[in-house]
């Protein structure tokens, strides 16, 4: 499915409903079979019992049917009320679960203790609990009334049954044994009739829930999953022509009229303040989003011409969010291409270049140790900096023609950071690469620098050209540089 879809509001809602249903104890896909079989059983029961009863006294059957139907329809509002308000309630219930989990969260405990948040959290939990309790009270009140009504209905039904059966017996048409027999049948049939009506209603609800699954699976994709043109073999030229992009449900455009050409084999540095649109720009180049306006050309062809999965194989990217997955270290690094010849040797080489091999080598199972200690007992939790080196190793291993690095040194100490800078030229040989960072030291080893401000490119050129221009770039560079120089700092 398109990556962009996962960020859309309506898709998130569909996903939440369908996952919520699947993970709850009352999953529609599972229980629909049980409901169908209940329905069939009840149907057969009505058939057999009904024919027996009908032989004796058709009117009795009619009365029982009428009472069961009345009983169902009168008590329907309880489940209806629940279904209608369920979503609001689930939202509050989730907030309560979140707060409960928060107190268990040992990482949050530091903040909770330092800032004395405990009374505040406790008050919030109490509030949510009383809201949830209010909801429960409302539901159970309706349940109570429904139950009382059911009792009255049952009273009426049994009364009529006794009346009819005793009357028949007094008239001498049935024996005592028959009396017990028919009484049992009436109770049984009442149960089946109610069961049938209930099953129909339940199947209705289930069908509604299954609709969510259907919507989830048939959510439309806009990217090209079919046949695409051949992938370029040499260094790739990336061209953005008047690209505009706006996020789903946002008012303003994040990128406004970007015109950018990156020649094959060029390494570009992308700088700018927070929120300028740098990450959005590279996500567009990676093929995660489709531009709202304008087009992106890869190697002279529009991006839509490529099959999107083949397109992804052309990109090695290191993003800011690092998500550890409970794979073994080898699988984590080499997942893009496990069937490569010498996969293990190349993985070791990639990890050496990223500076993480020493740590991995020292682990109990080496490269086959699992990540995430909470998931596997013999797993390992790597620190922030170590994970950053590992994801760099992953990108190095994949070795594809486009390399994109978004703040790859944010968690690294100065020695490790320098290690990357020294290797950068070698790493990006024959590749088109983009480097995003706040640390202006990184711009020194890139071929060209582009400054992004409020979604538009304002300055572009080599470091020397931009310093000579004395514009925003030069200003920002000087601000950061002054703290590394000797001498007095003026605030």
């Amino acid at each position, binding site marked *: 499915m398109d990556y962009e879809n996962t960020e859309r509001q309506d898709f998130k809602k569909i996903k939440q409903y369908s996952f919520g249903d699947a993970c709850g104890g009352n999953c529609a896909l599972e229980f629909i079979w049980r409901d169908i079989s209940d329905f069939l059983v009840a149907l057969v029961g009505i058939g057999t019992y009904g024919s027996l009863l009908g032989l004796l006294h058709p009117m009795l059957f009619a009365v029982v049917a009428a009472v069961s139907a009345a009983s169902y329809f009168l008590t329907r509002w309880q489940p209806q009320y629940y279904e209608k308000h369920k979503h609001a309630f689930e939202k509050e219930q989730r907030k309560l679960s979140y707060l409960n989990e928060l107190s268990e969260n040992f990482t949050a405990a530091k903040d909770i203790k330092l800032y004395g948040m405990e009374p505040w959290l406790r008050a919030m939990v109490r509030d949510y609990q009383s809201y949830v309790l209010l909801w429960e009270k409302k539901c159970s009140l309706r349940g109570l009334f429904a139950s009382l009504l059911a009792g009255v209905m049952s009273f009426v039904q049994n009364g009529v049954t006794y009346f009819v059966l005793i009357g028949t017996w007094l008239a001498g048409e049935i024996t005592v044994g028959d009396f017990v027999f028919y009484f049992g049948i009436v109770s049984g049939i009442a149960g089946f009739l109610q069961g049938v009506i209930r099953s129909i209603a339940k199947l209705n609800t289930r069908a509604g829930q299954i609709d969510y699954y259907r919507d989830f699976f048939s959510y439309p994709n806009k990217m090209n999953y079919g046949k695409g043109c051949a992938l370029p073999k040499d260094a790739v030229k990336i061209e953005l022509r008047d690209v505009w992009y706006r996020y789903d449900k946002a008012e303003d455009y994040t990128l406004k009229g970007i015109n950018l050409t990156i020649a094959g084999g060029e390494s570009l540095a992308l700088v700018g303040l927070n929120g300028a649109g740098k990450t959005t720009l590279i996500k567009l180049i990676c093929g995660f989003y489709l531009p709202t306006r304008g087009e992106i050309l890869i190697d002279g062809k529009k991006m839509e011409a490529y099959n999107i999965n083949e397109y992804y194989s052309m990109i090695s990217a290191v993003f800011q969010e690092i998500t550890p997955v*409970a794979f073994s270290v080898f699988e984590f690094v080499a997942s893009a291409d496990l069937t490569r010849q010498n996969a293990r040797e190349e993985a070791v080489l990639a990890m050496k270049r990223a500076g993480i091999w020493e740590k991995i080598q020292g682990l109990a199972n080496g490269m086959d140790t699992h990540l995430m200690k909470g998931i596997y007992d013999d797993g390992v939790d790597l620190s922030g900096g170590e994970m950053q080196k590992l994801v760099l190793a992953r990108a190095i291993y994949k070795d594809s023609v486009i390399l994109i690095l978004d703040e790859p040194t944010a968690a690294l100490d100065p020695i490790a950071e320098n290690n990357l800078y020294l290797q950068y030229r070698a790493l990006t040989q024959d590749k088109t690469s983009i480097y995003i960072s706040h640390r202006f030291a990184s711009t020194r080893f890139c071929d060209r620098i582009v400054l992004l401000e409020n979604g538009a490119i304002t300055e572009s050129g080599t470091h020397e050209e931009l310093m000579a221009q004395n514009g925003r770039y030069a200003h920002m560079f000087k601000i950061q540089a002054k703290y590394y120089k000797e001498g007095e700092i003026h605030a």
Partner: protein
Amino acid sequence: MRKENITWRAYRRYCGYNKKYFPLKFLHIFLQNISPYFNLWMSAEIVTALSDGKSKENLFELVTVTLLGNLFIHILGAVLGRSVDIALQILRHNESAALNRKTVSLDYAKLEDPDTRTLRRKIKENAYINNYGVTAMQNGLEELFRCFTSMLLAVILFAEMAADMVRAGFEPLSVFLLIGLIGFTAVSIGYNHFTQKKSSERNRKIGEWMLKENQLGRGHGLNGMDARIYKQQDIVTRFDTRMNREHLRLFSWARRQAWILTTPYILLSKIPEICVYLIVCFYCTKGIFPVGGVIKYVGYLNRVTADLLAFFNTLSDLKNNEPFLIPYMEYFDIRNDMYQGLLAVEKRSDKKFDIEFCDVSFRYAGAEEYALKHISLSLKAGERLAVVGG
């Protein structure tokens, strides 16, 4: 610690969460137990009246009593049931609040301590497997009470039946059947007791597997961008297939085991039922019991034997549950080490403080190496210290 102690301790703590719950619940259970006995009694009376050829007015009286009685019990039960539901909700809320309060009030060092985390994890895990722990204790105690009151009510009503039987005198066939009844009930109880170990072992295996599934599943949540670029989905799909295969294998095995164990039990427990029918029909044909007696006495005897079996089953369930209560109670018993005292801290009027480390060394709980070794530094009020390092 004597074994009974822990269930009792857990019960007292549980009651503390909502004092109203258990009294209301026990009342409700008692009421619900009356309903079937009442019905049995009244239907028997009606059938007897029919076969004895009583008058229409008499029958009318009986029917009215039955219907109104049922309605009354139903209404009372519904109202009480609602109060019980609300009380249970309040109890659950208070329980989770108590657990959270305990967690938040722990020393930070205790929080990081792997032992504490293990306890906390175990409590959650036990609840996940079959609700072991306090919930199982609650359900078990309620079930015990139900069986107990049911048997009590039956015994009171038995007096009638026993009186009739005794008056009829000694009948070899009936004595033989009675011995059969009691004997097979005892055998069923014994059988259940001895297979208890196997079934709880099976439950434990399934529960552990589901926990593992849950845990491993949590470690395979993928970031959409990484997944696409680094083809992580393939590995996850292979993993899922392996897990599903194992899941199927385990559950089929469990099903087979359950079937093998419970089939003899079902057969064994049917025999007392047969004996009951035979005894009652025998006395009915002899005219010692009224016609309605078939309905009444068969009903009572079957209920009593079923409840007796359930009573002993629940007792062994409760005993089984005790090891799972231990982490729960231990968690609440954790003591804090940090200074909880009222020693006054000398406050300066400008609200600034000097901080001084005097030869401080620190090692994390469960670690071998020292993280800090012989640190001495002092920070005067108003100073700014930068901490750098590799």
